[in-house]
């Protein structure tokens, strides 16, 4: 009898310990990441320009480059990333449960998400807003003419809420046709299940080029909401929060200082004190984050500065052809503004 009880007590204790240690372990994401040898990064299930696999099966996009920047800062190797494709409904649970260390998946920063989910947004990689894609032959010129339309939208997104708000505010009716993945929403739009495809305008550009005949559809001029997209980490690990936050700031600062992946080696000998501090030639700004002094150098040499990342993935060097617009640096009339390295 006592033998039996001992076993049971052991089992209870072991399970309790297992459950308890997971909580403690998640407080030190950097050590865990080092132990695994990769950064586990939650990305979308295929959104060109933001995160999608190319024809060689390598992940590409502006969100993917954020993951690569974090890996470059942590390991000095931008390829040390394990990508976990997540749909909109899965993403926060995956991050909360520790399946991923960073969520870099065109996720809108909102109060609810920042305060009630036990998560923190580290910054903004892309300033976006919701738009409408419609068939050209409907002859529409404004979103105000959409009363009564059937609208394809992805489940669990802020789009679902913002579209409902917009139609209510304008006294219009609509039928929401809700799908789990953005691929399904495109399918529904092409089959004529809905008149309108709605999402962030950047995504609409990406989804439009996936259509069989991209010229048959137009994006209406209205942008009906603010959608700041950024990386997300778990709350309560300030060190990891800082690493992800400053990986993005390093790319923005690099563009502002004119450092790119092409000239970063020359810049190592620069006399500019800002550049010397960023590249680790003057002081060690990585140390307090648990990183090496050359953390920013690794990001810039392997991933590039923000402008390079933008142009390559969503800007003029990409099929999406999105204008920089408000995504320019503050020095060029945009709103990207990174704090100084000092």
């Amino acid at each position, binding site marked *: *009898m006592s033998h*039996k*009880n001992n076993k*049971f007590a052991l089992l*209870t204790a072991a*399970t*309790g310990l297992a*459950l*308890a240690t*997971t*909580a403690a372990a*998640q407080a030190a994401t950097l050590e865990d990441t080092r132990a695994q040898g990769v950064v586990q990064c939650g990305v979308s299930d295929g959104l060109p320009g933001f995160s999608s696999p190319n024809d060689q099966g390598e992940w590409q996009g502006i969100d993917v480059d954020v993951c690569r920047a974090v890996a470059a800062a942590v390991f000095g190797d931008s390829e040390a990333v394990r990508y976990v494709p997540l749909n*909109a*409904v899965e993403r*926060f*649970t995956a991050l*909360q449960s520790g399946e991923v260390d960073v969520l870099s998946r065109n996720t809108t920063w909102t109060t*609810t*998400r920042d*305060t*009630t*989910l*036990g998560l923190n947004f580290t910054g903004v990689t892309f300033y976006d807003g919701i738009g409408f894609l419609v068939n050209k032959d409907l002859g529409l010129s404004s979103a105000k003419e959409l*009363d*009564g*339309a*059937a609208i394809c939208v992805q*489940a*669990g997104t802020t789009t*679902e*809420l913002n*579209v*409902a*708000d917009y*139609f*209510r505010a304008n006294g219009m009716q*609509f*039928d*929401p*046709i*809700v*799908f*789990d993945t953005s691929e*399904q929403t495109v*399918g*529904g739009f092409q*089959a*004529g*299940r809905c*008149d309108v495809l709605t999402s962030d305008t950047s995504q609409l550009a990406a989804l439009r080029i996936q259509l069989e005949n991209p010229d048959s559809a137009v994006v209406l001029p209205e942008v009906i909401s603010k959608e700041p997209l950024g990386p997300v980490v*778990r*709350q*309560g690990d300030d060190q990891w929060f800082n690493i992800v936050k400053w990986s993005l700031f390093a790319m923005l600062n690099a563009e502002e200082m004119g450092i790119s992946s092409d000239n970063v080696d020359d810049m190592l000998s620069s006399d500019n004190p800002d550049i010397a501090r960023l590249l680790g030639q003057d002081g060690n700004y990585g140390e307090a984050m648990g990183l090496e002094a050359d953390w920013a150098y690794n990001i810039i040499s392997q991933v590039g500065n923000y402008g390079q990342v933008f142009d390559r993935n969503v800007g003029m060097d990409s099929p999406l052809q999105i204008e920089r617009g408000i995504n320019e640096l503050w020095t060029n009339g945009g709103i990207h503004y990174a704090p100084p390295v000092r």
Partner: protein
Amino acid sequence: MSVPSKAPLRRPKPPFWRDPAKRALTFQILLMIGVAIFLLGIVNNTQDNLAARGITTGFGFLTNTAGFGIVQSLIDYSSESSYGRTFLVGLLNTLIVSALGVLAATIIGFVVGIARLSPNWLIARLATCYIEIFRNIPLLLQIFFWYFAVLRTMPSARESMSLGEVIFLNVRGLYLPEPQFLSGFGLIPAAFVIAVVASIAFALWNKRRQEATGKRLPAGWISLALILGLPLLVLLVTGVPVTWDVPALSGFNFRGGITVIPEFLALWLALSIYTASFIAEIVRSGIQAISHGQTEAAQALSLPQGLILRLVIVPQAMRVIIPPLTSQYLNLIKNSSLATAIGYPDLVSVFAGTTLNQTGQAIEVIAMTMAVYLTISLLVSTFMNWFNARVALVER
């Protein structure tokens, strides 16, 4: 006769650890306590961890404004409704597709199951083909087939197929005219109720008359005529107080009438056809479980074929059919959660999908959703157990 002394019979009571019954009880109590402590530990641990990570908990979110739209709702719903309301909308959408699915699957299943036993070679083979095809293709693929291969290829709203310009079918769904009842229509349901009461009374009288005299009237046909005829008569006498709201194309879409969305059609067809193939086999096996001697005995009593089926075969077959039929009904209800794959707004899609993601309260939402399926399944199984007990062979 002397009273025997009880003293020699009384053995010393063994200590409780030597008494197998008491020992077993002790272990069971200890195990229960252990399990309770374990579960309590899990709940506490979860609460502590959620609190430590700053994740909001509790059911307060149910009264917050949902802020998103739902395409099919049986009750009033707008984006200003609460999350609690989205739960109800999703629940009702699950219930309606399950109820209609159970109904259709039962009808198709019984017809195909009986057809499989038909002496007609062609009918029996057709039924076999039906069963073997639909039973062996995964349900999810069948849902995709109906949704993507059939309903997605329908014409656009402007080129809808129509039946007499009142029923329309296009890629947006099926549009039916909706009856609008005018004043005076209340008499028709009243007539219906009177007819039903009258046919019950007639059936009782007929039975008593049969027991007394051995003569019986065809009660089924007379009741049917009464139940259909009386309301119809009243309808004609009152001058048909119904108008039809016929759907018409306006703007993007058809307006008016009843809209059956293609997601519903696809899910309903797939669930009914898939489950029916299993029910057909259950019905066939139930009928074949009755020994042929029963039929022969009934024939020897010179009962007509219809009465043999109704009075001898079916009552005995039902007790074989009902237990596995219950599992099929439960399967159908639970399988309806595949709705989320094609965007039908059922409980899983609306509540455990959108609501979960907008509020982030996974534990509460999933617990509520699981509780719903558990409750529905337990209710169905209780009802079917009751029904089973009624049709079970009463052994005397």
